[in-house]
């Protein structure tokens, strides 16, 4: 009598690596976009610290300024600014995904959806720049 064995195929179930976002640039780009939120939070906290120093005393604010002028803080803030810009641009570009898909019954071009965000951003930057340059 032949000895039969039951056919028991085993499917291979792949598991994702913990470092899956390093495999390809498109996923790394996404991970960087998500990580940029950390730097946005950093800037918010930094602004609160700045306001607290401003409200405390002139000496404390001078200390804050001196701290911000150190090479380490300049490097950290430069990196944070790069991530902040990445955050703003990537999320502004995502606006057409969720809003204003139709206007007057016709599909809205992406530029119309995300454009106002860029305009507001640019306008606010110009006003602040004029303020700090003493023009306003």
């Amino acid at each position, binding site marked *: 009598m032949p000895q039969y064995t039951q*056919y028991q*195929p*085993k*499917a*291979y*179930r*792949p598991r*994702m690596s913990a470092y*899956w*976002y390093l*495999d*390809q640039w*498109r*996923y790394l780009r*996404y991970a960087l976009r*998500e990580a940029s939120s950390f730097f946005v939070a950093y800037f918010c906290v930094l602004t609160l610290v700045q306001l607290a120093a401003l409200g405390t005393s002139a000496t404390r604010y001078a200390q804050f300024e001196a701290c911000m002028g150190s090479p380490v803080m300049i490097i950290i803030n430069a990196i944070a600014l790069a991530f902040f810009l990445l955050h703003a641009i990537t999320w502004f570009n*995502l606006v057409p*995904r*969720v*809003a204003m*898909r139709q206007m007057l*019954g016709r599909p809205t071009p992406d530029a119309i959806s995300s454009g106002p965000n860029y305009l507001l951003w640019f306008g606010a930057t110009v006003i602040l720049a004029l303020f700090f340059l003493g023009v306003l």
Partner: protein
Amino acid sequence: MSDTIILEVARFNPERGGEPSYESFEVPLRPDWMVLDGLNHIKDQLDGSLTFRWSCRMGICGSCGMMINGVPTLTCESLLINYAPGPVRVGPLDHFPVVKDLVVDLDDFLAKLQKVRPWVVRKDDFKPPREFMQSPAQLEAFHQFSLCINCTLCYAACPVSGLDPNFLGPAAIALAHRYNLDSRDQGVEDRLDIVSQHEGIWDCTVVGECSVVCPKNVDPSLAIQQLKLTATKEWFKSFLLPRGKH
């Protein structure tokens, strides 16, 4: 240019188990050959045990989706010459259990698809042959989402699908949205209950690769974001008008 190209093809034998490995095959590099033609050449001429799915050879059936050099692609739509000088690495779709070589198990996907009721739901006494008139604008509202061929490339491109096996996934949600937008359908509330669970639209973190890899230019990521908006509006409505029917 060489007249051959190397295909590195994933091999997995379910009777032996273990991890898939890659085997190299030299196939002719012809200007009109797709990657699928290369695989068929291997099957016909070099190793008949190579297992993969394919059917229509014209990007309609959605059977021949595989990872080509790490990107989910329909092999019948990918010219081999575009990958010259090679080698070209062909593997089974990511995030699915592998049945054998390049064949993946789609049972889980089909169950998820069925969950969202991807058909026209009527709650009245509608019976054919009565017709529903639909204007071009009403058709346009859902047309792009109706082009989905269930090739599951979007699942292979979506890291959330890989990380959370319970995630409904891009194609199922896009098809739910397709029927929600259909003027003939009356099943929006039922579908919203399903897709607005945590494993539905809220699991999506807008990676967006599902829309990039779709061979039919369906935009599942857009469908998911639009459904998030709809679900949020419905939640507010139910919050403000708890007893009202909306």
